[in-house]
């Protein structure tokens, strides 16, 4: 059933997006791991068909920042991207039911 498939996808998305990384003192690995988590959250959002245009851009910019050694900048961008990805997945979960309330009858 279509709905069940969707719920499963969204549930998997939530699981992926909450899996947290172990903090490492190193600023670079912090940034890299934040960006990995962000990318996972973005993928989960895409799978739920709710990805935002802004999320991938944040990650892309963060990866460039890592190359330039701007780890703080990358970390904050990827934390934001991760939040966006997670919010998109939540949005998908809410809309799974909410959309029907907007249909005129």
């Amino acid at each position, binding site marked *: 059933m279509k709905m069940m498939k969707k719920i499963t996808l969204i549930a998997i998305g939530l699981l992926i997006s909450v899996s947290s990384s172990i903090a490492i003192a190193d600023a670079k690995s912090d940034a890299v791991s934040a960006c990995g988590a962000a990318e996972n959250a973005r993928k989960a959002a895409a799978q739920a068909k709710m990805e935002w*245009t802004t999320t991938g851009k944040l990650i892309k910019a963060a990866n460039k920042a890592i190359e330039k050694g701007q780890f703080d900048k990358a970390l904050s961008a990827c934390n934001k991207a991760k939040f966006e990805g997670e919010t998109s997945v939540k949005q998908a*979960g809410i809309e799974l039911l909410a*959309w029907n309330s*907007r249909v005129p009858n």
Partner: protein
Amino acid sequence: MGYIKMIRITALTILGLILFAGAAVATPEGDRKAFSDFYTNRFSDIPASDFVNGVYAIDAASRVQWEQIEDFPPYELDIDDGEVLYQAPFANGKTYASCFGDDLSVIRGKYPNWDADKAIVMTLELAINNCREANNEKPLKYKKGAIAQLSSYIAMQGRGNSINVVIPADSSAAMEAYENGKEFFYSKRGQLNFSCSDCHMSNSGNKVRADLLSPALGHTSHFPVYRSKWGGLGTLHRRFGGCNKNVRAKPFSAQGEEYRNLEYFLSYMNNGLELNGPGARK
């Protein structure tokens, strides 16, 4: 965020589903009637047949400029180019007529339709590329250029016919495609958290900055469109993508399943209205 919260969401979702399973199932025809009534009540001085003119049905000042442009619209050059493309034989000597038949005036009105063999919604643009591939030609890109010119030529020949999208009663897959399109239309998405219906239904006739939001009723009747903003012709799915980007939702592929199903739903909502594409838009 904890796992408990996540589990709670999932549980709520499943509970909701169970509740929904018991609710009365809406029929497409019931949907269409309610959809059409929504707009004819909201814009009670506008005849239903005028909604095919999009935002110009509800914006008198813009309509004057639009009519000046439609007097000799820029897409006439594209229609001519589309005709040349349509009539030109493929390398194997066959033409598009070998796929679409000899009566050009009926082609536009056949799409979108439910393709029972492929079990997908078939659109005009997808059919054009299927025809090309069946004749060993490379497929065209879906948003603009040659495919939009071909589509505009076919649309022009089909002007005046009524939209009459059919959802086969014996196909649950067709019904599911329709339902998916409907869900897409009413689901909020993007960073701005807007659904298609938030702008083009609940707020139709209201302004976003300087722009008046057009009613969704009639939206599919006049594509492809030459948009001044694009400086050229574009397909319906190009426009869908633009709308999604406006609410900061990552657009789906043109002619992908999501947009084809959305086209199926929206076109069904326009059943009975006149086909009047191609059109000029701001």
